[in-house]
């Protein structure tokens, strides 16, 4: 994206369109990435609960919430989801990220 020059910017250093952090994709900060296995997942939602970036995607299936994947646009690869996933289940494991 071409950055604006001083003559094009709104006065007073305001941002006319209210921005949200959704526009600021931070997934590229990752060195490791979580990989989710839908076949092992029991939908306990611990990963969703603990994720600091709201990167665990939930979808409604037959009126019930289900884990449906990981949003890599924002996931910084902290590994908390893999850590809190119950040890007997191990539905999420970390892999080296390669962009």
């Amino acid at each position, binding site marked *: 994206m071409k*950055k*604006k*020059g*001083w*003559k094009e*910017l709104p*006065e*007073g*250093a*305001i*941002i*006319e369109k*209210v*921005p949200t952090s959704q526009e600021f994709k931070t997934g590229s900060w990752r060195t490791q990435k979580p990989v989710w296995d839908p076949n092992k997942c029991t939908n306990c939602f611990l990963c969703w609960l603990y994720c600091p970036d709201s990167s665990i995607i939930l979808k409604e299936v037959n009126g019930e919430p289900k884990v449906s994947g990981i949003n890599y646009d924002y996931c910084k690869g902290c590994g908390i989801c893999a850590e809190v996933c119950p040890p007997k289940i191990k539905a999420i494991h970390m892999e080296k990220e390669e962009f």
Partner: protein
Amino acid sequence: MSETLKVKQALTGNEAFAFAMKQINPDVVAAYPITPATEIVQIFSKYVADGEVDTEFVAVESEHSAMSACIGAATAGARVMTGTSSQGLALMHEVLYIASALRLPIVLAEVNRALSAPINIHCDHSDTMGSRDSGWIQIYCENANEGYHSLIQAVKIAETINLPVMVTLDGFIISHGMEVVETLETDVVRQYLGKRKPLYNVLDYENPIMVGPLDLTDYYFEHKRQQIEAMKKAKDVIEEVITDYNKRFGFDFPVFAEAYRMEDAEYAILSMSSAAGTMKEAVDVMREKGEKVGLVRLKVFRPFPYEVLQEFFKNVKAIGVMDRSDSVSTMGGPVFNEVRSALYDLDTRPRIMNFVFGLGGRDFPLSDALYIVNRVKELKEGKTLDFVEYVGVRE
């Protein structure tokens, strides 16, 4: 001649500022008392208590909070004013930059006072000179009458260009000295100012915006450049507003600087604020002796009207610049440095020297004023002098 009814009142500088604020009737005033500006908001808070103004008065616990509250209110489109002095202005310092960069037309009634240490409550210009790079327009008034009218003009200037303005009066000398002030009628002032049309309104939830975001290396430079452009344009706005004010209400206030007996002057003094009154007397005394000396009283210090000074001084052989503060740079005061820089490009550059005087309220008698004029005369005649002298200090 204007047909506007004017009322002559005996007022101190602080009373003149407070009375102008009452007539302006700002939406919000947030302030903290400080000598010698205490009376401004003290009197104004009485107007609030008596229901003479509609202002929301915010009593805060420090000047930093006062300016912060002013900024908050101004981002919501309110007409905002405050008053302070010295350490209070210094405590506002951090937030002054935010007010100007967010383009908020806050008007500050400032009373010039020395900065600590040692503690001193009397007049000098160290306080506002410390804020000279904060992006605020600065207007230095000679007396209470000019202070009253400049405060009203300041609201117009600020809201036209969307930059904050501080109007200053010399502490105690003007703030507590009583003189005749020719005031306008309240209705006239309110009609003249109308309603503020804000650049933006952070409380407009139909059109949400973000104010004061993180800029970093990406956009900070562009935003600063934009602010510099506004300050350049402020020169035209200041000229338009003061010229229009004079025409409308029948006054002859100078715009950027006042020239006193400069027509055929061979040498001149540049002074600011109340000291200019004493300097005018000294110029008169010397003129009676046949000396071709004049005075330029600089009124607007930010933006710095270098073009105007170049015009005033293009035919002058020597100039003495008076500073009521010292930048402790070992190169004289701030006014001197800027005036000298402004005149560097003249075809025939005048000889120029600096007089630092009156620090911490040190008296500035006519004898000192005459000494300065005589020193500049010696400079004109070719004598080699130090480029800065300290007048009125004990050796």
